[in-house]
Structures are given as C-alpha cells and as structure tokens.
C-alpha cells in the first residue's frame, strides 16, 4: 500500500515489477491517497506526504501479531517476515502450549512454558541457538 493511485500501480507493475517477477505482483497493490489508512496504522509521514516502510502481520482473527517500521532508504528482509509468520502459526496451532525462543526457525526446538521450565531454560536452550 502506498499513496500512489491504482493507475500508477498498474504502470509500475506492467513496466517494471513484471520484469522482476514473472506474471507481475501476485497480491493486491493498494492505494491510500492522502495516507488515511497509513495514519490509522501510525506509519504515515505527514511532512513528507508518504507512508514509511511499515509491515504488519495480521492473523486469521484479524489480530495484529507483529509489526516493523523502517525509514525509506532501508529495505525489508522478507525471509525474516516469513520466519515470524511460521513462528506465529506454530504457536497458534499449538494453542499457546509452545513458544519459539530467540533465533527459532522451522526445525529448531520450541519451548513448552510451564512450571517445570521455570529457571530451567538454560538447560534446554543455549545462546548459540539465537544465531543461524
């Protein structure tokens, strides 16, 4: 979503993005003239008249599970967004019985919070596991 019109979205998709991604952008390119949606999400920069790089992960119940906001010159890390979604999905599927510690990615161990784990995380989780 940006403050550009859908006409500009079409031109950008047809003339540039479709040369990066075969078939063009596979998801809706939303238009937010005036930054009205960006304002309620807290990422519209009124002075510059543009949206900053806000990224929100919204679950199937419409609940915001996470967000990240960057200033314009720095791009996002798509793999990190996907990792977070996988972690939120795992937690949701476990109905909250499992949690993903720092550095978790698919295949790595999860934690099962409970009275037996109090003060014992150091036994099962090592700091190296925070890194790839």
């Amino acid at each position: 979503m940006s403050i550009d019109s859908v006409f500009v979205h079409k031109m950008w998709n047809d003339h540039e993005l479709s040369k990066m991604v075969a078939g063009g952008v596979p998801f809706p390119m939303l238009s937010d003239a005036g930054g009205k949606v960006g304002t309620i999400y807290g990422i519209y920069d009124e002075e510059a008249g543009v949206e900053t790089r806000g990224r929100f992960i919204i679950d199937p119940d419409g609940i915001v599970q996470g967000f990240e906001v960057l200033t314009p010159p720095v791009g996002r890390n798509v793999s990190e967004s996907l990792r977070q979604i996988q972690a939120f999905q795992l937690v949701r599927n476990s109905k909250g019985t499992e949690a993903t510690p720092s550095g978790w990615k698919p295949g790595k161990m999860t934690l099962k919070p409970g009275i037996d784990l109090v003060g014992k995380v150091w036994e099962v989780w090592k700091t190296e596991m925070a890194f790839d």
Partner: protein
Amino acid sequence: MPEEFKPGCARPTGGPAGEKPLQKEIPSETRPKETSAMIKVGRKAPDFSAPAFFNGKFVNINLSEYLGKWVVLCFYPGDFTFV
C-alpha cells in the same frame, strides 16, 4: 531555470512556496488529536477499504475480507522509488 534535483528514496514532493500562510491558533482542547495511538500487538487490526490493482483489474479491497487468512500488510513510500 528550474533546479535539477537528485531523486532519493523518498517520493519527491513539493508544498506551498514563499511566505508561510498565517495559521490560526487553535486552542489545544479543540485541536484534533494527533495521530491516535500506534497500533498495538495483540489488538484488532483496524479495518479499511481501499482501491487496488490486482490481477490486471482495479478492485476494492476490505481488510475484513481476509478474516480466516494470514495477512501481511506492507506500506512503502512510493511506486518507482528505488528500494
């Protein structure tokens, strides 16, 4: 002569030139609330309706249509910016 500018990562924009227009002082009680509180995790994402370009068509999208699915909502400064 128009001055050439180097395009950066923000969308080039303009504004009123010359003297600043007189601004009426609005008493603080009646001043509209500054951007209401930032989104909170664990709370409902505000619903919205917005026009979109999707699959070669112009369509209207409501966030609420996506209930039951995971959604990544991304904002960015502008089409044809570099990053």
